[in-house]
């Protein structure tokens, strides 16, 4: 083939194929059980708190002991009992439960930052 320009048609095709192949190369996305572990921990805490009708102080104490250094936030009826988590760019997993406390329905929510 006559070469009039910088690249011939074959070279251009070869480059296009390379670019295409690199573009479709899969990215390594690791599965991590971290999210599941966090969800399980939240479930455990909520179930026990709902069962025992735990108070705020008790909840904080339990969460600090169980979550060992993980950042977390507890809210009861949307009222926060710990400074707000810095959620920017971080995964936050939240779960909530409703319980009846002296005839009043309360919503307890816990969020863990991964």
């Amino acid at each position: 083939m006559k070469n009039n320009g910088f690249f011939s048609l074959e070279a251009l095709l070869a480059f296009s194929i390379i670019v295409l192949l690199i573009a479709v190369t899969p990215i390594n996305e690791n599965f991590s059980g971290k999210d599941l572990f966090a969800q399980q921990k939240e479930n455990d805490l909520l179930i026990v708190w709902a069962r025992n009708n735990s108070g705020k102080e008790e909840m904080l104490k339990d969460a600090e002991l169980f979550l060992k250094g993980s950042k977390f936030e507890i809210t009861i009826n949307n009222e926060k009992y710990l400074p707000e988590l810095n959620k920017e760019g971080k995964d936050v997993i939240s779960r909530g439960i409703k319980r009846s406390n002296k005839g009043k329905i309360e919503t307890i929510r816990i969020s863990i930052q991964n």
Partner: protein
Amino acid sequence: MIFSLDAMIATAILLLSLMLIFLSFNSFAQNQIQNTKESDKELFALALSEAIVKNRNEKEPWKGAIYFDSEKQRTEQNVIDAVLLSKISETDFGDYLLSGIYERSSNEIQYFFNKQKNNCLVVERFVVVKEILERKTILGVVVCEE
């Protein structure tokens, strides 16, 4: 000449890139194999701990050790029967082993049994243990590779 110089260079580049892509796929596959093994273990440990704190099986307490409230005629999830818990022992599941169970409080860890081997993983659960008196505690389930 059958091929132009351009075509030869293009072919060489193509072959080289195919080789690089093959190598990258190979390393990706190796990583995936390793990750899958690790996630299998994580999922197994999660499922085993879930079974212990959500089910009740008096013959094989590793399948479930929760408390049965005879007054209410029902079981309570996350409330562990201390008698059944003490009956759980080292169990072989083929690829994995249930190698230990412990109770953690603020200042100590007390093992019910502890036969840790290679590459162990611990899943901790927050439960109420029911004996004569009940207590809130953290239950650790240790799963190791065979």
